[in-house]
């Protein structure tokens, strides 16, 4: 039986796909058989971030509608033999997803894989609610910014009421907070919500803090999950997050502004 993890947020553009790609690669690197599914039907992106966009033949919707089987649609990662990608459809819309259809595909994948990562689309419509419906765990991706925090709070409410676990009265989805695009410099200047503020408002277990980092864009340009950029702060922070998910107790890093010289202090604000 696989563990199903949804990467969700409510608000768009906060880093769900970046996180899904990094998290899946991190689990695969630790030897777990992992599949990452793009639930953003109509706006697929995960294949680009994973660098396998030219190898897409069949997609998630093809499998749900019986036009292809799961094996035909899965793309094997070229860097890691434990990692597979199930791309979204670019031409259909989210109505093509159904509770039963998604359930059937997840069941089939569950027999093969240890972890199934569901990259949720933004919003609270069908794509997002289906991405979380079967989840055992949820990573709530939040930027330190008012609308993102508010939307995450909405999502946390939905996670606890509209999931298979809630409907069947099982233990609830385990929820974790991942703060991304964190800029300690801006927090120090009082321009950005501090980590403690976000945590206080959402009161979830913190699984990681990913700093704002140019390496995220560089990695997506190249189609490489940022976790493979081992030099970068963001890559290392994602690596810590994967380790924490697997039970390691690591201190959070990259939370303090780097010290500047006198001129930096005078002119850098």
């Amino acid at each position: 039986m696989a563990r199903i993890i949804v990467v969700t947020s409510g608000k768009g553009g906060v880093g769900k796909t970046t996180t899904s790609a990094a998290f899946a690669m991190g689990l695969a690197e630790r030897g777990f058989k992992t599949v990452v599914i793009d639930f953003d039907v109509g706006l697929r992106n995960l294949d680009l971030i994973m660098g396998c966009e030219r190898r897409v033949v069949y997609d998630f919707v093809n499998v749900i509608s019986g036009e292809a089987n799961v094996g035909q649609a899965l793309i094997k990662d070229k860097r890691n033999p434990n990692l597979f990608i199930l791309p979204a459809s670019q031409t259909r819309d989210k109505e093509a997803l159904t509770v039963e259809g998604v359930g059937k595909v997840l069941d089939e994948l569950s027999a093969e894989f240890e972890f199934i990562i569901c990259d949720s689309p933004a919003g609270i419509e069908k794509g997002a609610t289906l991405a979380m419906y079967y989840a055992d765990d949820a990573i709530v991706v939040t930027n330190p910014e008012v609308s993102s925090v508010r939307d995450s709070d909405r999502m946390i409410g939905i996670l606890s009421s509209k999931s298979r676990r809630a409907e069947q009265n099982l233990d609830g989805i385990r929820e974790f907070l991942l703060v991304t695009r964190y800029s300690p410099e801006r927090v120090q200047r009082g321009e950005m919500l501090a980590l403690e503020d976000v945590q206080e408002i959402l009161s979830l277990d913190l699984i990681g803090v990913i700093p704002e980092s140019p390496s995220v864009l560089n990695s997506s340009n190249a189609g490489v999950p940022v976790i493979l950029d081992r030099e970068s702060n963001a890559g290392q922070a994602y690596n810590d997050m994967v380790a924490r998910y697997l039970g390691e107790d690591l201190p959070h890093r990259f939370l303090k502004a780097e010290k500047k010289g006198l001129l930096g202090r005078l002119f850098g604000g």
Partner: protein
Amino acid sequence: MALLDYFRQRKSNSASIAKERLQILVAHDRRVGGPSYLPQLERDLLKVIRKYVAVDNDAVSVSVEHDGRQEILELNIVLPD
């Protein structure tokens, strides 16, 4: 040193405004789907508090939080500056 301090301490404080706004907003959002007596409870509490402090109309917010299997009634009162 005074000059240096001046530059260093000139913090904009928008983050703390953001936090305050969020706390109120989130408490209101969470009321949706909560027990139906929450709005009346809020109005009653507002009346009582106003006997002692001149607070704003939206100064009181009550919400229900879920913490595992426990439900917690959370009360937020914003005092005037």
